[in-house]
């Protein structure tokens, strides 16, 4: 159980490290949200699972599960709101952007009656 726990914690930490690097490497706010917003919470979930595996049997796993569940449930909402705010405030999309159907839809709506 100890080995499983340690592997989980290692994997989770690596995931957080990778997403921090992604924060620096990616070009625009949306790409950074992909890297930073999500991988970190998944990384925390892995660390929590690892801590539970290492601590069993014992106290504390209820709090860890709750923290992981709440984080994983609320994170998409936060990321969505950040992305929406960034888009609405007119943040520029990276040069690598090939298509923006939201802008096309809004332009159509503006042209319509």
């Amino acid at each position, binding site marked *: 159980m100890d080995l499983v726990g340690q592997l989980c914690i290692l994997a989770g930490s690596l*995931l957080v490290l*990778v*997403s921090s*690097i*992604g924060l620096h*490497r*990616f*070009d*625009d706010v*949306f*790409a950074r*949200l*992909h*890297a930073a*917003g*999500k*991988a970190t919470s*998944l990384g925390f979930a892995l660390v929590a699972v690892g801590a539970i595996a290492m601590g069993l049997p014992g*106290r*504390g796993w*209820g*709090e860890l*599960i*709750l923290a992981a569940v709440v984080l*994983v*449930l609320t*994170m*998409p*909402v936060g*990321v*969505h709101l950040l*992305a*929406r705010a960034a*888009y609405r405030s007119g943040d520029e*999309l*990276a040069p*690598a*952007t*090939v*298509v*923006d*159907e*939201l*802008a096309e*839809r809004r332009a159509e709506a503006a042209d319509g009656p």
Partner: protein
Amino acid sequence: MKRSIVAIVPWVALVAAWVALWGEVTLASVLGGVVVAVIAVVVSGGPRPGPSHLRPVAALRFLVVVAWSLVKATSLVAWEVITPRNRIVEGIIAVPLPGASPMVQLLVTNAIGLTPGTIVVEVDEDPCVLFVHVLHLHDVERVRAELVELGALAMSAFGAPTDAAVDHDGDPDAEVRA
């Protein structure tokens, strides 16, 4: 009978969360959880209407698909970060979910938001269209088809019968125009 089971789920979840916070199951923590759950529900104005329908097999498939795409997409984004080559092709695409109830919209939006590589930027409610920012948009129609498929799966798991009447194999573009 199904309906009463579904109605009890938020209460059980609230009490379970409280007990988890205390870290042990005792009479005091369970009773305290019930009190806190009642207060929380009263203050927040009652539980929102949950999924009106629940088809266990389809719900399980939805969970498995989300979990699998989570693993797949996490490794993909991690790989993108640690390899020097830049394969990012960004874009925002429209994903139509015709006839999706608010509950299904929420589930699909959350599932998409949970998966690295896709973010819901904006939601049009009537008709329901999600605008999704995608990190690896090498094939627009394939990504769109995958997300429409996810939405269809959520509808078949949690949607009302009218939701499920949507043609799952239909051409997504046709549904946009409809």
